[in-house]
């Protein structure tokens, strides 16, 4: 039953969202690499005044095994207040949780029992295949016509092209393929938009066969992974422009458009440059009638140091250096701070992007890393594998959450002695430091690997706003 008044977690503008009360719970997708046990959504207490602060306080186990939970999202968000498709009386209460490996999609209700959310619907893979022609669902975004779900693969065993499926945000039926004209895009990954300008942006990773068994060295050196951005007319659902970043820039992943709806720029992370193992962050922006992309941050590879606790894994041993591997970025709701995860070197960087063309580094912390294995300050004797990976920022921008797993097969390649399982929280203000009270790790995760975090009531990567 729809609400009589708008969902209180829908905000007209980024300013309203930032001024809202802080989140009390966080939901984290966690998966079993061996596929022997079910994956789960872990519920974390993130209320600093609570006795169980920083602990996993609830689990929702899935009924199947081998899903490999990855990204997930809310069924509805602030975009519901936009006048071109107003539906403010739906509720933000369901998490739409796709299995990246199984292509199964779970709908999980968080309203009645927030710390033990209930599975209310399961979409089998053939529903996505039959109705939208896709598989390997990846990113979920609540948008103008319902739920947008990017998918890496085609249906019926076809490797590609990937694209976007559209789901109803109340019944969760797969409505069909979103694109009327997909244009030249074949490799899919993320999608987001400039909602007030009718522009949709997509990025490129690879097809299922290129990613499911780990990074394929020949494909990487052959520059076959994604290296372009695509711009679509959000209204007509047509491809309008490709911006190629150059084929040395392999794997163009997370898209973080400015939250200010009057702006038309955004940031995208590139995992690795095959010429020097550096990683980069690019700014897409208007250039007359077209979009252009400019590299605004370059993070070089690091030579293994004398204090490093672990050697180089076979996948990068020939290069003799540790690539930063920028696997995720996140932009604060006020568009001021950009957080950049260096999953390879074990560093989380913070940039002041008030001038988006000229980011200024304003803080950095170390944790984990392929060779460094930097411990968390709360457990200084415990070397950590993995690195800051998925990063989520609270609506008010003061809290930053990171988890350490990238993707099962890739974790195993870069951290062959085990990636472990941990989550950390940073306080972001004048300083940028770890919260020593918040470090769920090891057995807290029941042997599952934590991946993406979603915050109760929305976060910096879930909502779009129509009003400045």
């Amino acid at each position: 039953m729809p609400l009589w008044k708008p969902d209180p977690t829908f905000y007209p503008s980024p300013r309203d969202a930032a001024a809202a009360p802080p989140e009390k719970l966080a939901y984290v997708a966690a998966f079993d690499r061996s596929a022997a046990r079910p994956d789960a959504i872990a519920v974390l207490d993130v209320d600093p005044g609570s006795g169980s602060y920083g602990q996993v306080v609830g689990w929702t186990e899935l009924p199947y095994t081998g899903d490999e939970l990855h990204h997930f999202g809310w069924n509805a968000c602030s975009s519901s207040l936009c006048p071109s498709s107003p539906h403010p009386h739906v509720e933000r209460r369901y998490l739409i949780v796709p299995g990246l490996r199984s292509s199964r999609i779970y709908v999980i209700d968080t309203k009645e029992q927030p710390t033990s959310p209930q599975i209310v619907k399961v979409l089998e893979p053939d529903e996505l295949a039959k109705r939208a022609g896709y598989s390997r669902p990846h990113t979920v975004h609540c948008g103008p016509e319902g739920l947008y779900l990017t998918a890496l693969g085609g249906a019926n065993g076809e490797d590609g092209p990937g694209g976007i499926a559209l789901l109803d945000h109340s019944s969760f039926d797969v409505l069909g393929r979103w694109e009327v004209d997909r244009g030249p895009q074949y490799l899919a990954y993320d999608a987001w938009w400039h909602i007030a300008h009718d522009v949709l942006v997509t990025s490129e990773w690879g097809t299922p066969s290129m990613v499911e068994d780990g990074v394929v060295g020949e494909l990487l050196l052959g520059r076959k992974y994604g290296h372009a951005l695509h711009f679509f007319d959000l209204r007509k659902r047509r491809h309008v422009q490709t911006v190629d970043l150059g084929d040395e820039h392999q794997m163009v992943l997370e898209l973080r458009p400015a939250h200010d709806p009057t702006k038309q720029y955004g940031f995208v992370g590139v995992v690795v440059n095959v010429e020097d193992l550096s990683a980069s962050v690019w700014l897409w922006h208007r250039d007359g009638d077209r979009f252009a992309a400019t590299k605004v941050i370059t993070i070089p590879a690091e030579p293994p140091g004398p204090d490093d606790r672990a050697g180089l894994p076979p996948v990068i041993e020939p290069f003799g250096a540790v690539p930063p591997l920028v696997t995720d970025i996140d932009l604060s709701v006020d568009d001021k701070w950009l957080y950049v995860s260096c999953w390879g070197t074990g560093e989380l960087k913070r940039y002041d992007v008030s001038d988006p063309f000229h980011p200024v580094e304003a803080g950095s912390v170390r944790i984990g890393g392929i060779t460094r294995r930097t411990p968390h300050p709360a457990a200084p004797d415990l070397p950590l594998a993995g690195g800051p990976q998925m990063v989520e920022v609270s609506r008010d921008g003061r809290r930053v959450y990171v988890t350490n797993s990238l993707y099962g097969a890739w974790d195993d390649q870069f951290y062959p002695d085990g990636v472990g399982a941990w989550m950390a929280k940073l306080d972001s203000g004048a300083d940028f430091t770890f919260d020593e009270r918040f470090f769920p790790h090891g057995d807290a995760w029941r042997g599952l690997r934590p991946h993406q975090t979603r915050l109760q009531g929305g976060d910096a990567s879930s909502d779009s706003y129509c009003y400045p």
Partner: protein
Amino acid sequence: MTEGSLAALVALGAFHGLNPGMGWLFAVARGLQERARARVLESLPAIAAGHAASVGVVAVLVSLTRSVVATRIVAIVGGVVLVGFGLWRLLSRRHFKWVGMRLSLGQLAGWSFLMSSVHGAGLMLVPVITASGGPAAGGHAHGLGEAQGSALMSGIFVTGVHTLAMFLVAGVIAVVVYEVVGLTVLRRAWFDLDRVWALALIGAGAATVLTA
């Protein structure tokens, strides 16, 4: 046209103007996009024009039909249609989506026309038109042609009065929200008017049938 009918026409116009989904929200959004009150103001006539066109089609058709067909039949059929449409609006979860956020004034008028039509804005006026003692039912018709002419005038009059009320209410809300209240009104005061709307359709239909 009785005073009661006139008041009902104005009230329905105000009700339509009140609904954010009928257009004032779009006017505010256009203004905010470019931070210009002129965008708000120029949007309102386009929205009103689309609404008038949608309502006008029904008003003129009903007025014309009424002059040649028995009032009762029109009222009963119209009433049943209203109740059915209201129930469909109440039960349907489908959201109408036709435009993006960037549109010209012509497209805005077209959007307003479609939005009003799929919401049955014109249908809601049927009981007022069939109940009102308009010129066509006045008994002074000197032939069919003249009767149709007055019926047309009646339809246009109904449309005009209704649209003027809608335009004024939507305009005042749009300007006040843009200038003074701010967008928190969306979170605090945006009642689910679609459901109220559907109930109004059902109520209007039932009343038409019962009084026919």
